[in-house]
């Protein structure tokens, strides 16, 4: 995908939570990643595939890069290479505020994944990478629930 097609906007924790509570979805998966984070890069294709396969069934994927804004060109390149054709985001807030604003149980470790149901209730949260199977199982549990 050409890098010009990458859509990326700055967000604070409250913006992420607003996206989570937007009506019209059955499940929202928020993944916080960074270009310098190895496990984030490894699991990334799983999330892109998940978005592709389950968007039609009501899954929304919110990808938030926690890279420094000076790294934006690299972030865009990575998103283009991964074929992320939907809008994604970059953190524009201090770490402490962002971490606690999303969920105080999050230590700040990356990657971090949060899955919410259609009402905006947090149903799954974990730190570290996951396989496509794990992502799929947790998302389907909500989509089928």
């Amino acid at each position: 995908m050409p890098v010009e097609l990458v859509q990326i906007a700055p967000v604070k924790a409250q913006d992420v939570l607003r996206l989570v509570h937007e009506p019209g979805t059955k499940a929202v998966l928020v993944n916080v990643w960074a270009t310098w984070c190895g496990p984030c890069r490894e699991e990334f294709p799983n999330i892109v595939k998940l978005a592709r396969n389950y968007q039609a069934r009501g899954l929304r994927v919110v990808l938030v890069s926690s890279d420094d804004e000076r790294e934006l060109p690299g972030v865009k390149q990575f998103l283009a290479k991964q074929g992320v054709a939907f809008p994604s985001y970059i953190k524009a807030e201090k770490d402490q505020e962002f971490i606690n604003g999303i969920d105080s149980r999050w230590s700040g470790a990356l990657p971090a994944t949060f899955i919410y149901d259609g009402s905006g209730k947090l149903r799954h949260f974990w730190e570290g990478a996951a396989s496509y199977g794990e992502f799929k199982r947790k998302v389907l549990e909500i989509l089928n629930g």
Partner: protein
Amino acid sequence: MKMKQFIASGVAAWFVVLSVSANAASLKLGELAPMAGVKMKNVDGKEASIADVAGKNGTLVVFTCNHCPFAKAWEGRLAEIGNAYKEKGVGVIAINANDPSAFPEDSFDVMQQRAKEKGYQFPYAVDGTSDIARAFGATRTPEAFLFNKDGKLVYHGAIDDDQDATKVTKNFLRDALDALIDGKTIPVSETKFIGCSIKYRPKA
């Protein structure tokens, strides 16, 4: 009808259980530095332990490494703080717990170069089993633990609040160090931050 909905949502709530899987707990405020007597290989070729460097006003332990863009971003600030507060009676030690087989840049040779380049006037030592980092519950780099003169943890977290040194608004670690030296209450004793995960060596 309203009552029914209320009951229905109440029942539904019973079945909604949040699954959480986060990192193991780290050292808590007031706790002593674990494995403080364990000798580590220092960049000067000698050995150093946390207990060896303990200062009359307290001790600062920072887990860092060579490869991580975050650790790199703070190296200059770590050198400034470490060198300055060592002069003020705070013992300082930087520890690299990363497995160099995961990141070759985290090797001892590169540590020696880096300590020299950045002018560390304090030990930069190898946690050769990663067990010290495990015992601290240190998970990221750079991650600071500050102990008072009685050896109790009084600050844990980030050095300051921005990777970009020009945008720092809160100097968490310096503020904690100043308060510690002045015998005042630490203003912010725990901070969270995003950083590179420490790549532990496999358990022996």
